[in-house]
């Protein structure tokens, strides 16, 4: 990788955009929730990419790699671990609500659900 290679950023921002666009423009609840998970994945990728440093290794000491000054930033990784689990919680709750909405309306189309039109 050359210095300043922005490919990771492009991937992360692209994923964020796809996710946001899915949430904003789709009318199927499950599709909207898929969009939310894509958005989450994109944000996580962005965070880890910000913590990356060239020519260093993972922040885990082993007998072979015992030099802390040759490791990437551990903080964003810790944050992303948290964020991934939170994302799963949100997704599960959203899906449960979607099942519930389906029970009331027999559809997931937001145009047909009174409170979800916009």
């Amino acid at each position: 990788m050359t210095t300043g290679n922005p490919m990771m950023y492009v991937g992360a921002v692209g994923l964020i955009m796809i996710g946001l666009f899915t949430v904003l423009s789709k009318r199927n609840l499950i599709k909207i929730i898929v969009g939310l998970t894509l958005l989450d994945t994109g944000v996580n990728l962005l965070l880890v990419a910000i913590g990356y440093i060239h020519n260093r290794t993972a922040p885990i000491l082993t007998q072979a790699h015992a030099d802390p000054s040759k490791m990437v930033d551990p903080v964003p990784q810790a944050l992303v671990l948290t964020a991934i689990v939170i994302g799963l919680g949100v997704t599960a709750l959203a899906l449960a609500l979607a099942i519930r909405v389906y029970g009331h309306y027999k559809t997931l189309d937001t145009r047909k659900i009174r409170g979800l039109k916009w």
Partner: protein
Amino acid sequence: MRAFVSFSVLALIVVGLALSLSHIPFGTDRMQVGNYYLDHGVADTGASNIVTAVVLNYRALDTLGEVTVLFIASLGLGVFLSWPKKKEGTQEEGKRELPEASLIVRRGSQFLFPLIILFGGYIFLHGHLTPGGGFQGGSVIASAFLLMFLGNNAYRLRHTPLTVTESLAGITFVVVGLIGLGVGGYFLNNFLPKGNMFSLFSAGVIPILYSAIGLKVGAELSGIVANMFESRSER
């Protein structure tokens, strides 16, 4: 109108992010606190996996919050996917419309189940030494239950043991933190001896906390999967 609003919002964000990220060059060293963790992490906590040291020592409160988020999610699922009892037809109870899986799948899943649980346990017990930890191990454990659900139509999980595991693990986390407050003067302080690096019994309270998290996450995710499987889509 809707498409226009979406596009303009997206365009604004893309331009903003592109401009912002151009000031954060990819792959350069900008660490402030990160350096401290890398230099002192092992000495401070005894965990050779620095990410674990950050997750369970320096930023342990985040982790407590995060298992609470999962706890809330599984509570919410319990609320939303429980339907009034009286309307439940006795006929459809315990039956799913899937055809019965073949013998190989059923026996195979039963054979794999303990192995996967064991693997999950291995992952969270070694969280302070190798990549992986409570979240990864917990989700592996939940995947074992998922496999049982998929392989055996009649499979049911009893929710009481799950609930007990969940709360006991959560209480363990908080109590270990409170003991740290009592002994070391700080909540979630690592008050146990750090031990030798690279050995299983090292890093003080970190293996205890990670096991609690592993069990809690495993129980919560299994509960979520079970709730999803057992819910009905209609009244």
